[in-house]
C-alpha cells in the first residue's frame, strides 16, 4: 500500500499544474480552518454548525476579527487551509489580514466562507466584490418576501424568508434531497454579470425584493426577484472554493433547530433545511466532494507501449487517462460518460468521447488526421460542481519521411514502362544507327 501511495504521489507531482494544487493534492480536504468572529458569543450561538465541522475532523481555530495577532501566513507558508468570516460588522481586520491578503489566500488555492449580514461593513462588501458578488448598497436593506416568507409566531415584516430555490446539483448539495425550505434573514446580493465563475446556490423567490423594512419604499428596489442571490458559490480557476451569503443567522443554532412553514404552504416541517443545506455545502466547499484528479495520462501507437516523441500523419494511436474523485477519505473511480478528448491544433481535429471501464480508466483510440503540425491532447472536463479538469499535452505530428511513401504504386507503372522502353529504344536505335551501314 505504501508503495502505491508513493507512486500516486509521484504521478500527482507530475500532473501538479493540471490539478488543484491547493493543499496537499493527495488529500484535498481542508484540515486547518481559521474562523474570524465579531465576538465570541457566536461560538455558542452557532455551535451546531461548528460542531458539525469539528466532528468531520476539521481543526477550527476561533479568533476575533480585530485580534492584532491573527495572520494567514507565517514565513511564506499558509497556516490555514480555509477561512470562515463570520464577522459581518468588522471594519478592519487585526494583524496582517486585509482584503488583499484574503484574495491572495484564495488565489493560492484556499477556501473561504463569507457570511455578511444587515449592516455589513465595507470591508466585507469589498471581499464580496472581489469574489464576484455585489451586496445591496443600502446598508440596512434586507431581503423581503411578502409571499415566500416563513410563517412564524409573531407576524413580522416578512424579512425571515423561507426559500427552496436550490441549484440543481447533487455534487454541491449532496445526494439527499433537501425537503425543508431554508430560513434566511439578511442582506441580498446579486452575482456580477462579468464574472462567469460565480453561481447562485440558493436564490430568492420571484416575489422577493431588497429594501429597508423600516422605511417606506419610495424608489423601486435595486434588487428584485430571483436575481437576488441568498447564497452564492465560486469555484476559482485554481479550484479554490468560496461561499458567500448575506445572512449570518442562517448558520445559527436557532435557525437550525426551528421548524419552518412556508407561507401559503400547508406542510409544516419540524426542522428547517438549514442544517442539511449548510452541512452539505460545507462538504463541497472543503473539498470533501466533487474533487477530481487525473493521473497516468498515456498515449502511444496502437500495438506499442512507449510514448513517442512525435506522431506521423495517419498513425493509429491510443490515449488513456485515469480519473478519480475524492470522497472525503479516499480516491474513488470517477464514473461519467461525457469525458471528451480533443486532438487540437487551433481547433479540434478529432473530438472523441472517452470510454470508461467504470474503474476510473478512460481510453479511446483514433487515427491521427492527415495534417501535420503541433497538436495537443486536450481533456477539458468542466462539469457543474466538480473541479475543472484541464489536461493538455503537446505532441507534434510530422509528415511522411521520404522513404515512407508507397514505393510501387500501380499508377506509376506506365511511367516505369515508358522510361524503360525509352532506354531500350535508345539503345537499339544507337546500335542500328552506328552499325547499319
Amino acid at each position, binding site marked *: 500500500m505504501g508503495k502505491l501511495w508513493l507512486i500516486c504521489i509521484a504521478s500527482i507531482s507530475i500532473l501538479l499544474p493540471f490539478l488543484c494544487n491547493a493543499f496537499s493534492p493527495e488529500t484535498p480536504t481542508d484540515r486547518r480552518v481559521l474562523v474570524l468572529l465579531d465576538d465570541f458569543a457566536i461560538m455558542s450561538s452557532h455551535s451546531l454548525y461548528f460542531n458539525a465541522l469539528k466532528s468531520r475532523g476539521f481543526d477550527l481555530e476561533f479568533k476575533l476579527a480585530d485580534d492584532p495577532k491573527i495572520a494567514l501566513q507565517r514565513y511564506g507558508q499558509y497556516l490555514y487551509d480555509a477561512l470562515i468570516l463570520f464577522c459581518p460588522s468588522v471594519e478592519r481586520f487585526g494583524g496582517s489580514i486585509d482584503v488583499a491578503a484574503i484574495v491572495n489566500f484564495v488565489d493560492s488555492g484556499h477556501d473561504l466562507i463569507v457570511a455578511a449580514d444587515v449592516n455589513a461593513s465595507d470591508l466585507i462588501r469589498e471581499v464580496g466584490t472581489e469574489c464576484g458578488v455585489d451586496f445591496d448598497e443600502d446598508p440596512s436593506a434586507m431581503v423581503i418576501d411578502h409571499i415566500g416568507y416563513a410563517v412564524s409566531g409573531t407576524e413580522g415584516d416578512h424579512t425571515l424568508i423561507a426559500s427552496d430555490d436550490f441549484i440543481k446539483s447533487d455534487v454541491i448539495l449532496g445526494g439527499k434531497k433537501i425537503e425543508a425550505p431554508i430560513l434566511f434573514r439578511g442582506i441580498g446580493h446579486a452575482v456580477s454579470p462579468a464574472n462567469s465563475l460565480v453561481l447562485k446556490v440558493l436564490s430568492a423567490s420571484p416575489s422577493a425584493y431588497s429594501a429597508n423594512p423600516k422605511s417606506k419604499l419610495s424608489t423601486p428596489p435595486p434588487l428584485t426577484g430571483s436575481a437576488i442571490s441568498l447564497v452564492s458559490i*465560486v469555484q476559482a*480557476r*485554481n479550484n*479554490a472554493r468560496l461561499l458567500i451569503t448575506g445572512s449570518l443567522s442562517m448558520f445559527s443554532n436557532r435557525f437550525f433547530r426551528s421548524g419552518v412553514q412556508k407561507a401559503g404552504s400547508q406542510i409544516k416541517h419540524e426542522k428547517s433545511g438549514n442544517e442539511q443545506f449548510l452541512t452539505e455545502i460545507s462538504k463541497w466547499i472543503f473539498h470533501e466532494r466533487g474533487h477530481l484528479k487525473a493521473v497516468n495520462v498515456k498515449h502511444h501507437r496502437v500495438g506499442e507501449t512507449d510514448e513517442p516523441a512525435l506522431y506521423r500523419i495517419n498513425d493509429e494511436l491510443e490515449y488513456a487517462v485515469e480519473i478519480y474523485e475524492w470522497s472525503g477519505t479516499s480516491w474513488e473511480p470517477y464514473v461519467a460518460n461525457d469525458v471528451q478528448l480533443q486532438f487540437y491544433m487551433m481547433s479540434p481535429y478529432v473530438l472523441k468521447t472517452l470510454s470508461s471501464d467504470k474503474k476510473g480508466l478512460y481510453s479511446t483510440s483514433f487515427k491521427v488526421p492527415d495534417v501535420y*503540425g503541433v497538436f495537443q491532447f486536450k481533456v477539458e472536463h468542466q462539469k457543474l460542481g466538480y473541479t475543472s479538469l484541464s489536461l493538455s499535452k503537446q505532441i507534434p505530428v*510530422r509528415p511522411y519521411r521520404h522513404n515512407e511513401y508507397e514505393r510501387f504504386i500501380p499508377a506509376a507503372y506506365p511511367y516505369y514502362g515508358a522510361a524503360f522502353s525509352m532506354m531500350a529504344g535508345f539503345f537499339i536505335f544507337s546500335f542500328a544507327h552506328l552499325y547499319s551501314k
Partner: protein
Amino acid sequence: MATMPASASDLFKSFKLKTKQQELLIRVSILCLVYILAFITRLFSVLRYESMIHEFDPYFNYRTTLYLTENGFYDFWNWFDYESWYPLGRIVGGTLYPGLMVTAVLIYRILRFLRFAVHIREVCVLTAPFFASNTTLVAYFFGKEIWDSGAGLVAAILIAICPGYISRSVAGSYDNEGVAIFALLFTFYVFVKAVNTGSLAWSLASAFGYFYMVSAWGGYVFIINLIPLYVLVLLITGRYSMRLYVAYNCMYILGMLLAMQIRFVGFQHVQSGEHMAAMGVFFLMQVFYFLDWVKHMLSDTKLFQAFLRITVTCAVAVGGIALGLGMVSGYISPWTGRFYSLLDPTYAKDHIPIIASVSEHQPTAWSSFMFDFHILLFLFPAGLYFCFKRLSDATIFIVMYGLTSMYFAGVMVRLILVATPAVCLISAIAVSATVKNLTVLLRSKNKVVQTGSTKGSGGSKSSSKALLDQSQPFQKNGAIALLFGAFYLLSRYATHCTWVTSEAYSSPSIVLAARGAHGNRVIFDDYREAYFWLRQNTPQDAKVMSWWDYGYQITAMGNRTVIVDNNTWNNTHIATVGRAMSSYEDEAIEIIRSLDVDYVLVVFGGVTGYSSDDINKFLWMVRIGGGVFPVIKEPDYLVNGEYRVDKGAAPKMLNCLMYKLCYYRFGEMLTEYGKPPGYDRARGVEIGNKDVKLEHLEEAFTTSNWIVRIYRVKPPNNRW
C-alpha cells in the same frame, strides 16, 4: 602581348624564363594575391566584433547546418521543425535550398578529415569569403573567355573588392547568396564556354553548375530565364549554330532533371510560369533545327517558304494552345508575386505588402548604386561600348547579362548583388581595353621614333597607330596622362571599397555599435542578451510571439518556439500576429491565447535611437494584418496621413498593443538631457501616452538598453 619593358625582362631573364612563362608566372601570382585579398578584405567583421553569424536569415541557415552536422543528411532532408510557425510547423527539409548547408558541412567534414578541430560555426562564418575568393577565379576565366586574359585579371581584381558583392559575403554573412553568386557566375561561364566550343562536356558542366545554383538560391530563376533569352536573341540575330543547339539542349534537359531533385523546386521546374520561357525556347530550338534540316533537304526556296509559314504557324498555335490549356487547367501555375514585382516594381506595393515591407526589396536609390559600384558605374557603359565593338556570342551574353541584371538591380536593392559580376566583367573589359590601347600606343610610338621604318611585331594594328601618331603630336603625353588618370581612378576605387567594407558592410546587425559622447565606440549587445535570457529563463516549450523579423534569431539563439519567422510562407499567420500587435490589449489577448503564446517580444529603439525598431515597422504590421483582417484599417493609426507617436497621434495608435508594449514604463524615463521624460530618441518626439497600463501582460525582461523588451502573458484571472 608584346615584350616586357627592358629592366623587368632583364630580371626575368636571370630566372631563365621564356616570355610566355614569365607572363604565366605574373598571372598566377596576381591571381593568388587576388584570391587572398578577396578573402581577407571580408574579415573586417571578425576583427571588429567576433566570429559570429550576422543578421536574420543566416541564423536559420546556421541552425539548419548545425542540425545537418548533428543528425545527418536524411534527418535533415526529412526535418519537420515544430519550433517555428507554431502550431503549424514547417517542413524545413522541403522548403529550403540545401546547397549552402551541404557545402558548409562538406567543408567541415573535409577539415575534420584533415584533423583540423574546427567548430561548424567557424566554417559557416568563413564560407562566404571562401566562395568570394573562388568567384574571383571564375571571373578571371570568364573574362578571359569573353575578352582576353588581361580583362580576366582586371575582372578578378574588381570583383574581389566590389562593395556590391562584399555586402552579401563578409565573414559571418552566412547566406545563400554567398555561395550562389559563385554558382551563378560559374554556370554562366561554363555555358558561354559551351556555346563557344560546342562541346557536350562543357554543356554538361554548365548543367551541373546550374544544379548547384538551384540547390543554393532561389535566384536560379534568373539563369533559367536569361539563358533562354540569350538563345532567343542569338536565334533572332541569325547567330544560330550547332554549338548553340548542343549547349542549350544539353544544359536545359540535364539541368532541369537535376533541378527537379531539389525538393523545394521539384515539379515547379516544369509547371510554374517562371520556367515556361526556357521550355518554350527549347521547343523553338527544335523547330529551328527541323527547319534547318528541311531547308537543307529542300532545294526549292519557294517550297521552303511555304513550308516555313505552315510550320511556324503550327508551332506557335500548338505552343499557344498548350500554354493556354496549361494555365486554364491550373497545371501551369501563374507567376509568383515576387516575380511579378520584379517585372512591375509597383506590383508589390499594391498587392503583397509582405514583399514590399522588406527593406532589401525596395527600389534602389541612386546613391546606393554609387555606393556599391563607385567607378564601375562609369566604366560599365564604356565596357558596353567595347563589347558592341567586338560583338561575338560571348560578348552578346555578357551584354545581356549586364543589361538585364542592371534593370533588376534598379527594381530591388538586393539584386545589385546579381548585377555586380556583370558590371565588374564589363568594366574590366573597359579598363583592360583602354589600358592596353594606351600602352600599345606608348610603346609603338617609341618604336616608330627609334626604328623609323620597321613597324615592329604589332602588325597592322600598330601600323595604324603609327599613322595616327603622326597626325597627333601630343598623343604620347596624352596617353601617359590618361594612364595616370586610370590608375588614379582605380586606386580611388580600391580605397572606396575598403572604406565601405570596413564601415558599412561589416556590421553584424545583431550587435549594434554607435559612437559615444566622447567619440568612443559603444556596443549594444541587447539582442543576444534577450535571446540568452529567453534560453535560460523560460520553459523549454514556451512560445514567443514577435514580429516575423526576429523569428529566426529567437529559434536559433533563444531555442524557443516562435509563431512566425523570416520564412514568410504563411501570410495569414503573419497577418494574425500583425493583427494582435495592432489591436487593443483585450482584443489582442484573445488572439494571443488562441495561439498559446507565453511571451511577447518587441524591439524598441526609443532609448538608444535605434531606428529599425518595431514602432517604425508598425505600419507594415497594420498593412499586412489589414490585408487579411479588414477590421484593421491603416487610417485608424494615422493622423491626416501622417504617422506619429506623440500627443497628436491617433487614439487607436496610442492604445494598441504594440504601442503599449514598446512604451510601457517609458513615460517616466529620461533619455536625453534637456528633454522631458518619455522622449523617444528614435523618432525625436515626446511620446503621447505616458501612462501605459497593462492588464493581461506583464513585463518579464527588458535588456540593458531597452532594445528588446519581453512580456509574459498572464494566466486568466483566478476568480473571474
